[in-house]
């Protein structure tokens, strides 16, 4: 194996992110209040080793073998998700959810993280097998099914955050294979109806706009009808659906809309996060010196709100640097997807990019109140074995694809 064919920029960006992530996790444990978080970076180090092993293994696997193994991987992931629903346990912030698989009381992992990768593989295999981009809603249905199965299983846990990640992956990959914008909009329209359904005026306006779009783009009559009716149904059903949400989910959504609602309970997290970030100012309070974190005002500083630690301790400058690192990583991934030797690899790497992007956007967005608090980890930063290993495996995949394309001289692109 020729080392010069490794994608250096991907390796370097990942390595820098991993080092900064480990340091941040170490800092997150430096509190004045005794906490289990203090020792957690050591365990993350073990997971890191496991992740590197996983990445190397993945790098060794030929895309063809991977393509062949994809349906099995997908099947196993779905089976694990079903198993989790049946015997899963909760932990941490989502104690009432069934997200963990445990053997003999020891939690060994969250299958959803692996399922994200498996779904990317499966979707890539399906989309790469098509010569033409799906041009109608009916042609999208198989893709929809591939994503819907894990999506629904995850939503049932319930894990709202991961469910959002599946949607991000779906839309990004469909876009990458050339699905037209208006078709994606029609696909997303039930979700838009769902969100607007809380208030009848915006929703009515949306229905009018949708009707106009349908008249202009002229899809098949049946498809158009289905889309339109689905939208109407979503608008009507949404309130009923709202009532079926668990109170903590309702509270999370509500406190996203108005964090000051109940500062001690639901809005507490977001307020404390903003206080931590805001008090960091431009230059921050210094590595490991964040007072809000040290005094345990910042909740979940090692998982959901690890980015607030960066905001508090390294300031706005630190935030920009980390965002730039993630941007660099995503640029590299998009470049690899674009230069891939085969369609399967291309769609696969873009799927990985969309997964990383959704995680970063939602996680960082929720620390400043831009996104609801849905609790998904920040790649390479948040504590959590399953997701770290998944990320490393994904990077290993991308490295292999990049290596392949360099091998065939595509890298010039």
């Amino acid at each position, binding site marked *: 194996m020729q080392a010069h064919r490794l994608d250096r920029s991907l390796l370097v960006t990942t390595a820098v992110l991993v080092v900064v992530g480990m340091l941040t996790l170490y800092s997150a444990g430096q509190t*004045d209040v005794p906490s289990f978080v203090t020792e957690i970076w050591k365990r993350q180090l073990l997971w890191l080793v496991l992740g590197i092993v996983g990445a190397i293994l993945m790098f060794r696997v030929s895309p063809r073998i991977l393509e062949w193994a994809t349906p099995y991987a997908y099947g196993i992931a779905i089976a694990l998700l079903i198993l989790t629903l049946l015997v899963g346990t909760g932990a941490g912030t989502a104690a009432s959810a069934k997200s963990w698989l445990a053997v003999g009381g020891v939690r060994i992992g969250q299958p959803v993280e692996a399922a994200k990768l498996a779904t990317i593989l499966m979707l890539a295999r399906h989309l790469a097998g098509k*010569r033409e981009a799906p041009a109608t809603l009916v042609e999208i249905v198989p893709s929809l099914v591939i994503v819907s199965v894990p999506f629904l299983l995850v939503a049932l846990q319930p894990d709202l955050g991961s469910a959002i990640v599946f949607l991000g992956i779906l839309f990004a990959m469909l876009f990458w294979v*050339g699905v037209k914008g208006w078709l994606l909009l029609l696909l997303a329209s039930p979700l838009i109806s769902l969100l607007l359904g809380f208030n009848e005026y915006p929703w009515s306006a949306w229905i009018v706009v949708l009707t106009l779009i349908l008249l202009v783009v002229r899809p098949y009559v049946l498809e158009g009808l289905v889309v339109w009716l689905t939208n109407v149904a979503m608008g009507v059903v949404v309130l009923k659906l709202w009532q079926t949400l668990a109170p903590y989910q309702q509270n999370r959504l509500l406190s996203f809309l108005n964090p000051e609602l109940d500062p001690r309970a639901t809005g507490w997290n977001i307020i404390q996060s903003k206080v931590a970030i805001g*008090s*960091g100012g431009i230059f921050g309070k210094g590595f490991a010196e964040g007072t809000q974190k040290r*005094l345990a005002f910042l909740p979940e500083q090692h998982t959901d709100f690890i980015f607030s630690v960066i905001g508090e301790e390294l300031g*706005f400058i630190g935030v920009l640097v980390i965002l730039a690192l993630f941007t660099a990583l995503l640029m590299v991934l*998009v470049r690899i997807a674009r230069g891939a030797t085969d369609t399967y690899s291309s769609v696969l790497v873009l799927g990985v990019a969309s997964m990383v992007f959704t995680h970063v956007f939602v996680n960082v967005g929720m620390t*400043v109140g*831009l996104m609801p608090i849905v609790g998904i980890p920040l790649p390479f930063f948040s504590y959590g074995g399953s997701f770290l290993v998944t990320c490393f495996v994904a990077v290993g995949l991308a490295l292999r694809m990049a290596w392949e394309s360099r091998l065939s001289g595509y890298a010039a692109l």
Partner: protein
Amino acid sequence: MTWQHPHDLARRARVGRLVVLAVFGILALMFFRVQVVSSARYQLQSEENRLRQVPLPAPRGLIVDRNGTVLAENVPGYSVALLASSPESLTAVLARLSPILPLDSAHVASIQRRYRQAPTEPVMIQRDAAFEVVSALEEQRVWNPGLVIQSDPKRYYPHGPVAAHLLGYVAEATEEEVREGKVRRGGVLVGRDGLERQYDDLLRGQDGFKFVEVDALGRTVREAREEATLAPEPGQTLRTTVDIELQQYIRDNFPPDSRGAVVALDPRNGEVLALYSAPSFDPNAFIGGYDPERWTELRESEEYPLFNRATQARYPPASPWKLAMATMALRREVVTMDSRMDISCTGGMRYYNRYFRCWKIEGHGDLTLAEAIQQSCDVYFYQLGLKLRLENLLHDAVELGFRERTGVDLPNEYQPLFPPSTEYYNRQYGPRGWTNAVTLNLAIGQGENSQTLINMVRFYAALASASGTAPEPRLVPGKPGRSRSLQLSASSIFGLREALVGVVAGGTAAAARIADLRIAGKTGTAQNPQGPDHGWFIAFAPAEDPVIVVGAIVEFAEHGSSVARLVTPIIARHLLGPDAVPTRAADYQLQTPADSAPEPVPILPDTSFFRSPADTAVSAGTPTR
């Protein structure tokens, strides 16, 4: 056209990159808003989040006597308070501490209430904790980081019960006081009685504060920066006019197991030299949150030890009142010092169909005013009262201040009781329901007349002063209060003083004479329907130029003459110093005169006649005015 055409991919890659840049750009903008634009606000919020104010109690000011001897001071003590994040955690910590710091449920409930009033401030759990408790709690601190153990100066009265009523005591502010904002925080010591209460604002000082850093659960992590600490400002030292040695002497010599009071004033300026009420109590007992049992004991004791008998007890003024009568009569020029009355004393006199007795059954014979004062002849003063007329008597007595508080700087001084005018009788008994006989009772200090000891002493201070004016009694020198003039000629004052000197030299108080001292005084025996009579004695010396007035009342003393033997040594000690052994005059006169405790004479038309005709001991007279 396949979807993987390089141009298409390049275009989509551009769109993808744009999306990433746009979304992360929005994120960066959000962070810019929070971290740069609103940073100051969040910084403030983060400070407020983690900093808690812990008050540093100010030591109360000292109280010293006129010679600088400390009467109330502060000694080192420790208080235990708790910073809690929620009522639940407060309960939990209290439960955890219970092996070291046992608290009953009422106490816990009160702590909870106080916590709810100010949840961000440490709630006082125990003031004046024992050293063993404090050291045991210090060990527990790791598990209970909200504990605030700090030195909290504790009030101490070195003289204990000697000057208890005068100094008062301190106690923690009640919940009502905290609610009403009278004090800035719970757990503050406030003066509850005496000077401690009267001059509370001066003595209390200003609390300082320091900041401690707390975590999200309200647990103290460390003390914040030194420069943010504001040192407490101790209260001012209160210099009083009291002579604690004299006060101690009074306590030592007060008849044991008796109730009563002694007041010593400087007639020249109204300074209170001593003020003692018996029985006394130990004000140190109230420090550190009072023991409810002891409180109840003090509160409900039959002897009412908390009651200041010098300013809050009212007694019939009895014979000392005769000087007030003489003053009023001399002022109105009804009599002179040499005037004699129409009826000479034969042990009593008849007024209409009632017989008013003199205390001396044998009678005093024909007396001048000076002699009548000396002998305390009741018959003389009955007639003096009638000559003065009731309206004038009431008017002048009110003018002389017998219906007003002296204004001494002690809390809760009682107002003396005295009828403001004849209207009082009309209202009380109906316009035809009373007779002029009330004048006779009033003339000898009985009837509707109740005076506090301090008010009577104030009156005698006026007699003792050169100008016949009495300044307001004061315990702390300050702006002079209003003084009240007797409006007597110098010769009248001189005459009255000489008569009073005669009382001690050879009159009713002869047994209390002190050699080499010319003491002017007046004994009195106030009839007490509840038991043995109360004894009065008020005196001043030296008679030519008085520098001290001492008044005493001893409950159930039977006679004023015995009280005189308590008072004259006090005067002697003050004038001659502690080392001079006062040579008491020879006890040649062993009999102690009863002095003015005639049988109570009903002043009301007796209605019992109609119910029991057989009872003719007192017969109803026609009401005359």
